[in-house]
């Protein structure tokens, strides 16, 4: 590159950097604002001007959320249902993805198109059916009721299928020559060869399930059965809205997911890229 060209790209790079930083600030500010406000006194929160730092930092809202609400149960419910959704979704999708990718059986193609098609249907469209079904089954206000309709994640199947498709067929053939059973090929060759995908998919599925709101909101009416995303909407009482309290419980609700993001940053990015590549 000529020096002039280099300078041009440098300028372009600088402009892009500035734009990204501005975007990041715009995106991050509400989060910062929410966290900071949760440490403010209630009357500080409602002051009409921007204060970037609490005047009298306080933990009382956190204390309130932790002691005066059922946040413990909500956490518990969220952990149980999100784990349940993750384990069940990943393990079933794994089997379906493997079958469609590796086994030859009648109706394989039809099944595959069905899965692709189901991927086009937003869950919101089905939510009434889900509600009626789950209600008829008597599963409202139960973990099973929260979990079942959330097991539909065609994208996980699709990602698995694509990864299994990419495993060179010689591995399968070598394993067949090695007397491995179909289940052996799956569990000893295909899954271990694709651990990265499994971890990535587990993490995003967990985050989706943890963040789920609409369905758990419909499926649960009893406070002690609520997941944390639903529960925090209950942190107001008859005397009106307490912003700082709500924000404190929201921070508590988001904390595990934020932690997961931080711990598994690379895997999460990878998983989001994977599923985004398919979601298009």
């Amino acid at each position, binding site marked *: 590159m000529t020096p002039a060209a280099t300078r041009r790209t440098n300028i372009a790079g600088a402009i892009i950097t500035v734009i990204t930083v501005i975007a990041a600030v715009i995106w991050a500010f509400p989060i910062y604002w929410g966290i900071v406000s949760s440490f403010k006194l209630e009357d500080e929160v409602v002051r009409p001007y921007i204060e970037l730092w609490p005047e009298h930092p306080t933990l009382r809202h956190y204390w309130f959320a932790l002691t005066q609400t059922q946040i413990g149960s909500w956490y518990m419910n969220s952990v149980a249902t999100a784990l349940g959704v993750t384990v069940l979704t990943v393990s079933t999708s794994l089997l379906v993805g493997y079958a469609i990718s590796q086994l030859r059986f009648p109706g394989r193609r039809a099944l595959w198109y069905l899965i692709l098609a189901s991927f086009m249907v937003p869950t919101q469209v089905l939510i009434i059916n889900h509600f009626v079904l789950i209600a008829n089954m008597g599963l409202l206000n139960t973990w099973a009721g929260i979990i079942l309709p959330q097991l539909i994640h065609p994208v996980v199947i699709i990602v698995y299928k694509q990864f299994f498709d990419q495993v*060179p067929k*010689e*591995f399968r*053939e*070598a*394993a*067949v*020559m*090695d*007397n*491995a*059973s179909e289940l*052996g090929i799956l569990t*000893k*060759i295909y899954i*271990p*060869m694709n*651990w990265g995908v499994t971890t990535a998919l587990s993490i995003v599925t967990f985050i989706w399930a943890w963040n789920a709101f609409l369905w758990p909101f419909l499926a649960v009416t009893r406070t002690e059965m609520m997941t944390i995303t639903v529960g925090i909407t209950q942190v107001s009482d008859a005397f009106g809205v307490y912003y700082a309290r709500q924000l404190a419980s929201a921070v508590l609700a988001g904390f595990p997911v934020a932690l997961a993001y931080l711990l598994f940053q690379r895997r999460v990015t990878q998983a989001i890229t994977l599923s985004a590549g398919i979601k298009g």
Partner: protein
Amino acid sequence: MADIALQNVSKSFGAVEVIKDISFQVKQGEFVVFLGPSGSGKSTLLRMIAGLESIDRGKLLIGGRECQALAPGQRDVAMVFQNYALYPHMTVRDNMAFGLRNIGMKEKDIAARVADAARILEMDALLDRRPSQLSGGQRQRVAIGRAIVKEPAAFLFDEPLSNLDAALRVRTRVELAQLHQRIAATMIYVTHDQTEAMTLADRIVILNDCRIEQIGTPLEVYTYPASRFVAGFVGSPGMNFLDAEISTSGKEAVATLGDGSRMAMTISVPDGGAYELGIRPEAVQVTTGRGDTTGEATVVENLGDRTLVHTRLNDGTSVIALDGGRSQIAPGDTVTLRFDTSQLHLFDSAGRAYHAD
């Protein structure tokens, strides 16, 4: 260890019949090479023996046992894949043990077999590594080790050396030959490289277009190619082919080449007429004395111990001739060529071969 027999086997992919009614036998302990150009059906045939492709019709006998309907794992054969297919998440040791664990062998016996194989292949130091920590040659060795531990009736190799660099390929080829001598196992080896075939094989099965062109020892297929195809495929540099008009009387024949030169030979062909005359470069000598024809040298390849002289006869036909190591011939020179008529072959229009005495 056992002999392998294919009896009238056929195979179709969809509507296309790729293997048509093939029969042959591999003797116990024999090293047989399937040689042929790309798409000639070598891999398909090997995979049919392995069980990775089904056999539509015909029988496959391994050690006298009918195997065409058995699962691959039941056939008592081991396969070495071109890309090795080593399980990347397992150590070398586990790679070798995998197949043995699947048949429920005791860990103690497995350990003994793995140790044996490691000793034979001199790779004790590699046992706890992952495939990604091995060089290409070492991976190749592990792939062979994985086959050895099974103590199979036969080893099947599908182009096992094609992923190695030239020097390593030569070395591994020699090691394979030594391995075959040491464990005296039946081996079937697929390659499109005729040097590999010539150096390794007890017998070569030459395939073309999914048919067997010839089965024979390396020397047989080299000296007495059964067809025009075999003649052209085996040998490097390849055989020279010239159009010739043959007039024949009994065992004697006279060939007239395109440039008008004539030569007499002892050969039995049914009729006179147009044939293709084949002769290997080493049977065409550059001479200062009397010759059969003359040509103009176009390219001179000095190989040190010998010189390949590419010539053009005056009718435009190319002929490669052999000269000694310190050849003085330069491109553009006119050279006299003498054909060793005892090493001539004639091919009729159907590709059938006739050999001179």
